[in-house]
């Protein structure tokens, strides 16, 4: 089973990367963009023996404890 975890900065936190990319995109002619935010994205493959439920528990734990810094980031995930 495969999980996709998306980690992004909390909305209240400044995203200098997104801001700079937005600015650059405008400069090279993509003018209709109002905001860009950049995050990270992980694809995690699990052992096929695990049940969906087990994978879900595992992913939540990993995302919360390892992949994100709860001070500035939040996550969402999808299991496929």
């Amino acid at each position: 089973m495969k999980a996709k975890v998306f980690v992004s900065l909390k909305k209240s936190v400044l995203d200098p990367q997104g801001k700079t990319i937005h600015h650059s995109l405008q400069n090279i002619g993509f003018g209709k963009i109002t905001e860009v935010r950049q995050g990270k994205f992980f694809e995690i493959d699990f052992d096929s023996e695990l049940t969906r439920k087990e994978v879900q528990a595992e992913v939540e734990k990993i995302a919360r404890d390892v992949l994100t810094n709860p001070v500035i980031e939040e996550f969402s995930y999808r299991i496929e």
Partner: protein
Amino acid sequence: MKFGVLIFPGSNCEHDAYHAVRKVLGQPAEFIWHQSTDLRDCQAIIVPGGFSYGDYLRTGAIARFSPVMGAVRRFADRGGLVLGICNGFQILLETGLLPGAMLRNRGLKYVCQQVSIRVENVRIPFTALAREGDVWTIPIGHMEGNYTLDAESLRSLERNRQVVFRYCAADGEITAGANPNGSVANVAGICNARGNVLGMMPHPERASEPLLGSEDGVRLFQSMIRSRS
């Protein structure tokens, strides 16, 4: 020989490159702003190190769209000498002037240290004054210097002698332990097929005075100068 040193807003080695060619080698040199398309009769262009446009997306990704890089591409097409150092190398890759791409260093951390590199090709204007197999002491400083290329393209790169520098041990041996960033085949610098565009991760301008710990970089600049005189 007149050198042009590009300045992107986030460049930070432009003064170092300028100092090396202007003060140490006594050549005329000029800065060229990223918005400009006029290379002012320069005979060689240095794309310096730094963080061109912040490089938050990918090193060199935005620089490729800058007006000055359009001019540099035309300059290179006409056979002009282009030297990309560190971020400059990354920009040349993104611009397509050189093949391949950079990944994050194998150790995932920024690496700043002196390394040894072996000169693999002395038939290009950048290394004409060196001998094949010479070992240079020269610093690196980067987070994304892990050069990668698919197997087929790498074979053709090797066949054409486009690998100019490789990371090596102090005695010149190419070993895994001497590879500071995981680059394929220990690649530290490559040139285009024609030999007039060179990209390298090590900083020759940081090895251009005895006080800085090495003068090996001077031979590269001198080779460039000699090639056009």
